[in-house]
């Protein structure tokens, strides 16, 4: 006689260690199998877009730090590019190179967090996460030398950055660049060929590329399905057209593919930073002519940039005043969750957190 069972609904989060912040899912299980998922957002909603309407453009930089707080530099960059487009500011070259170096360091740091916690969710219990947090710490120390802050950097300004890198930043960056490739080799030795990781991740949560495109999903998730779409290369902003780099792709579009794309992107970011160092020249880090209190002409602007999570863009509407009339964030973390339900249904309880970790979201950016 078969055992009589009935579906059970469980709340996961908002205070759950595997939800990467205050995220809540109402999950219905049939035994161990997921049959329904309802994501519930908003526990970290601070109204950043509304707050931006009563702050000057320079002050809003501090708000962008607190959106994706594991990738503040790329959030800064995206916002600043939109402001520069809106007000027609031409930044100084040294400022642009410094912004690119900071953004690529941030991409490595963000991918380290994404991969580390993804593996933690998989049950590796510490080792890879602590290795990756160790390297992230080096990057945060570099940021501390660069601008005095580790997480909420507020480093960038319309026209460039607010101060030049101190002399002791450059040798520290060189040491990091020399050391990091070996660290990535170490991760690959430890994880990429690991049979347990392969068994747990291969073929789990597969989504085909057409569905991903239709659901507006961008970033490593899209590249893991074989679509060669990286805004740094396809619609280059800053000086990304002056550096050469590969776009790591995978075709399987499963949890393993999303992991391996991030690992390979870290190597490419190191290459980009090296090329920036070859091309950076002395000079002012921001033009003296750009005031701190900007009054862009009436109009609107949108610039999409490749943040570690996908396309991050700021849609700014100006009425000619010192604060934007409207500041809307195109947040990849929120939009990449569109397919969460489809990705989880049919999988087991143990894969729930792994798949969720492989999407790589940040609640500060989801809820804003």
């Amino acid at each position, binding site marked *: 006689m078969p055992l009589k069972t009935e579906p059970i609904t469980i709340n996961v989060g908002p205070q759950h260690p595997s939800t990467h912040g205050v995220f809540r899912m109402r999950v219905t299980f049939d035994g161990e199998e997921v049959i329904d998922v309802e994501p519930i*957002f*908003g526990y970290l*909603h601070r*109204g950043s*877009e*509304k707050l931006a309407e009563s702050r000057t453009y320079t002050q809003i930089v501090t708000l962008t730090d607190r959106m994706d707080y594991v990738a503040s530099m790329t959030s800064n960059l995206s916002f600043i*590019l*939109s402001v*520069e*487009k809106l007000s027609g500011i*031409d*930044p100084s070259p040294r400022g*642009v190179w410094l912004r690119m170096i900071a953004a690529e360091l941030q991409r490595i740091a963000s991918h380290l967090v994404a991969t580390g916690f993804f593996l933690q969710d998989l049950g590796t219990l510490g080792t890879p996460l602590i290795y990756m947090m160790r390297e992230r710490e080096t990057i945060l120390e570099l940021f501390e030398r660069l601008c005095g802050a580790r997480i909420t950097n507020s480093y960038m300004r319309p026209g460039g950055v607010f101060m030049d890198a101190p002399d002791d930043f450059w040798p520290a960056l060189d040491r990091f660049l020399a050391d990091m490739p070996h660290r990535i080799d170490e991760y690959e030795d430890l994880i990429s060929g690991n049979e347990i990781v392969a068994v747990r991740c291969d073929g789990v949560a597969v989504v085909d590329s057409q*569905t991903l*495109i*239709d*659901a*507006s*999903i*961008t970033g490593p998730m899209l590249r893991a399905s074989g*679509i060669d*779409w990286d805004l740094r290369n*396809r*619609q*280059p*902003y*800053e*000086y990304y057209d002056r550096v050469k780099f590969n776009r790591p792709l995978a075709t399987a579009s499963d949890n393993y593919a999303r992991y391996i794309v991030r690992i390979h992107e870290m190597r490419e970011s190191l290459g980009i930073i090296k090329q920036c160092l070859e091309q950076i020249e002395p000079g002012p880090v921001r033009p003296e002519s750009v005031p701190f209190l900007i009054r862009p002409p009436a109009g*609107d*602007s*949108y*610039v*999409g940039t490749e943040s570690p999570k996908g*396309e991050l*863009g700021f*849609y700014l*509407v100006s009425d000619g005043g010192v604060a934007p*009339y*409207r500041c*809307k964030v*195109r947040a990849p973390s*929120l*939009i990449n*969750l*569109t*397919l969460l339900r489809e990705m989880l249904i049919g999988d087991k309880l143990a894969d729930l957190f792994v798949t969720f970790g492989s999407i790589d979201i940040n609640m500060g950016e989801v*809820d804003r």
Partner: protein
Amino acid sequence: MPANTAFDTSGEDLATQIEAIASSSVTANGDTDVWVSSDRLLDVMNGLKEAGYEMLIGVTGVDYVGYFEVVYHLLSLSQNKRAIVKVKCGEGRIDPVMPSVLSVWRGAELQEREVYDLMGIRFEGHDDMKRIFLWEGFEGHPHRKDFL
């Protein structure tokens, strides 16, 4: 100029393209953006998707006090270009309604819910039109200009 503008489709070209899809749906155009009338929106969006704009990058609600406007940012991966379509949402501020583009792009699901929650524009045809960040029972829509 580090912020790249080379991939924005010009407003005139886009207006011509949209007129070919659905005649007399364009009401105005700017340098890189086109205004269409809301009752023709679904025809326009279906046509633009077929014309290569595979991805709905963003849905934004803007409160211009006299009226609401919804801005759609589209992206074509195959042709590597962007398009901006704007729709004025009726007259006045009472119960603004728009047709949902969820049937065209799956990506509209969470984005339209966000606009509804924070700006109070209801999308007709969206099968799960409820608040996303704030709780049910919250009064008002915070991103409106009259919400303090």
